[in-house]
């Protein structure tokens, strides 16, 4: 498999870049934040729906576009460049993937059309700790009669404040993991919203004896642990794609600034101390590009090494995004730490993405474990 995107994927990427450049300049993030805070711009979301982005990974037999994760990754990279807020990650990358990979066919037929036409958004409630610890469940789902009774607390739920449905994953019995789709209006659900560093809304969701009908269990015969493993690989790779956009854009902004800003009568970019640091970042970015496309492709092609590639992607991007956003601010000098400059927004979003689904040390640990040392 050549490590390049196809013509079709390139066109998709370009159309996304065009739309977001006009409709979602970085400055619009300030408006969302400062003028009657809203988590994301609904009218822009509607345009994304019209562009077909909600149908990208949905199979053709459900009228989806079946464009795969390389396709969705191109969109996420572009949203990263523009720091665009939307439920793409919660609803399209995570929730649609769960529905797609599970074996509840009734659910697919019912929910896919609603996701695709924008009627509904969904999110995945997975974390129970303030660190990524995906297999550590204290939430309980107990089968009583025809229903599951769910108790527990989920945290760091992306777009929990706006999603219509919550997909909850937890342990049912020793070693048995279940995915459940639960309406946010269900009795016993308490949602507490937190605005984080990136101006995004993330929720703590408490489940108090929430009654979930058996039909809402998403994995029927499919092993929940395997399913979770695949969802995590998708999450790591998809989020790495958005991180790539942030890295590339904040680097480009910084290189332009190095050429523009004059001190001592010369552009600051003529100083070798800064040039070498820029060249090192350029080099790390070359690696980032390679692992992001590789990990996305490995998911699309069902490569058995996809888990490894997704850890590599999240680790490498996590490490590089820290380097690049920090250098970006430093190379801007005083203006870099002001709210007037855009560059700070990239750093803020970067830190959230670094934590989301595990920082680089988490993934380096997993990689070592995969190699049995």
């Amino acid at each position, binding site marked *: 498999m*050549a*490590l*390049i995107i196809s013509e079709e994927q390139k066109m998709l990427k370009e159309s996304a870049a065009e739309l977001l450049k006009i409709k979602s300049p970085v400055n619009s993030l300030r408006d969302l934040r400062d003028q009657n805070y809203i988590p994301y711009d609904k009218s822009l979301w509607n345009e994304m729906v019209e562009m077909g982005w909600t149908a990208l990974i949905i199979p053709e037999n459900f009228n989806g576009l079946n464009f795969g994760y390389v396709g969705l990754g191109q969109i996420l990279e572009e949203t990263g460049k523009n720091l665009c807020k939307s439920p793409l990650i919660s609803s399209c990358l995570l929730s649609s993937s769960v529905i797609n990979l599970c074996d509840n066919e009734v659910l697919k037929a019912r929910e896919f059309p609603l996701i695709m036409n924008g009627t509904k958004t969904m999110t995945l409630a997975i974390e129970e700790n303030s660190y990524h610890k995906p297999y550590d469940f204290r939430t309980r789902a107990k089968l009583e009669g025809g229903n599951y009774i769910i108790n527990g607390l989920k945290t760091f739920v992306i777009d929990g404040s706006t999603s219509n449905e919550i997909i909850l994953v937890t342990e049912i019995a020793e070693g048995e993991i279940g995915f459940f789709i639960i309406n946010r209006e269900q009795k016993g659900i308490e949602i507490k919203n937190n605005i984080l560093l990136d101006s995004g809304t993330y929720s703590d969701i408490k489940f108090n004896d929430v009654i979930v009908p058996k039909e809402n269990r998403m994995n029927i015969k499919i092993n929940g642990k395997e399913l979770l493993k695949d969802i995590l690989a998708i999450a790591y790779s998809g989020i790495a794609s958005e991180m790539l956009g942030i890295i590339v854009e904040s680097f480009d902004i910084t*290189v332009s600034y*190095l*050429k523009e800003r004059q001190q001592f009568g*010369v*552009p600051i*970019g*003529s100083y*070798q101390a*800064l*040039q*070498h640091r*820029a*060249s*090192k970042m*350029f*080099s790390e970015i*070359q*690696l980032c*590009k*390679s*692992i992001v*496309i*590789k990990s996305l492709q490995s998911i699309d092609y069902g490569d058995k090494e996809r888990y490894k590639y997704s850890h*590599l992607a999240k*680790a*490498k991007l996590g*490490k590089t995004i820290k380097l690049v956003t920090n250098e970006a601010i430093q190379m801007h000098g005083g203006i870099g730490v002001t709210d007037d400059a855009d560059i700070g927004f990239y750093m803020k979003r970067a830190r959230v993405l670094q934590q989301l689904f595990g920082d680089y*040390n988490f993934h*380096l*640990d997993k*990689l*070592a*474990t995969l*190699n*049995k*040392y």
Partner: protein
Amino acid sequence: MKSKTDVSLTDFRKETRAWLEENCPMSMRKPIKVANDFYWGGRNPKFSSEDQKIWFERMLEKKWIVPYWDIKYGGGGLSQDQNNILTQEMSRLGCRKPIYSFGISMLGPALLEFASEEQKMKYLPDIVEGKIWWCQGYSEPNAGSDLAGLQTKAVDKGDYFEVTGSKVWTSYADKSDYIFCLVRTDFESSKHNGISFLLIDMTYDGVSTRPIKLISGKSPFCETFFDSVNVPKENLVGKLNEGWTIAKYLLTHERQMIGGIGETDIKKKLHQIALENLPLIKGKLVDGILRNEISNFEMDEEIFDLTIQRVTDEAKTGNNSGALSSFFKYYATELNMSREELILALSGSDGLVFEKNYKSDGNLARKFCRSKGNSIEGGTSEIQLNIISKRILGLPS
């Protein structure tokens, strides 16, 4: 539906795989350990084992010593796609290169681009057959990073040039048959404009070498002296005083080689070495920090290999930004140096033994010392970073 070329490439891959499996001796698929594992050819060729000889001869017969050169120059005439497949299949088995040669990796590409047809016919087939061992006469005592400041002079004496001066750090000069050399032919014009590219037989009168000992204790490179050496005019490649263009072109190939592009031998995994040396508790290395460093290193190593693949794939679609060879050179050498540092760290005092060679992976301490040259040879890391910032990022001088 698969196109015709796809089908023929699939067949080519199958045949290639089968041929390599049948013809590459098992010992030629093992990681390189000691200097003897490289075969360099030359007028007095020395094979270090029967397998090395068999491997070279079989590849020569198959015309896969330089598979991508034109058949008339002794190459295999393979297309870029076929050559990529061959490289991939050799990597899959970990096949060593049948011969290591600056003729193939550096001089050949420059001759193909700048030499006359006569010169190509004279030199290229000998490179393929490993008959001539070439060395590189670029650096001088006062011209290292600032290569264009070189002073070795070639004076026009009618039907020959008289060459006087000295080169330094010339790898394998004492073993080589020929040197490709940068010489100054015009002392009046600016430093980049008076340089010419000359081929000099090391047996010509007035050429001498003196080995220099490295911190590794070995002497792979030399000082090279030219004392009024008469060099026939026909040994000039390209136009007089226009050698700098050739010099730079050759350097991009040198950097790609050092950057590991086209490499096929397999390096032992670092964590494998760790597992042989260090205890585990609950399946994890006891030293958590070292474990993290190894994981971080292997991450970069694996992704760097993917990057070679990605850029090769992009180049095929015509999407290539030339100066990338500096990135590959820079990153590959920094990686290799981290690798050697880590190997030393996880081998404990065993890895420090200098005089004996009792580790199965070769003499680690000497290899470690040798790796310090990686970020210097072929243009230092700093020079590569300069090139990236000027030529790729467009930062001002």
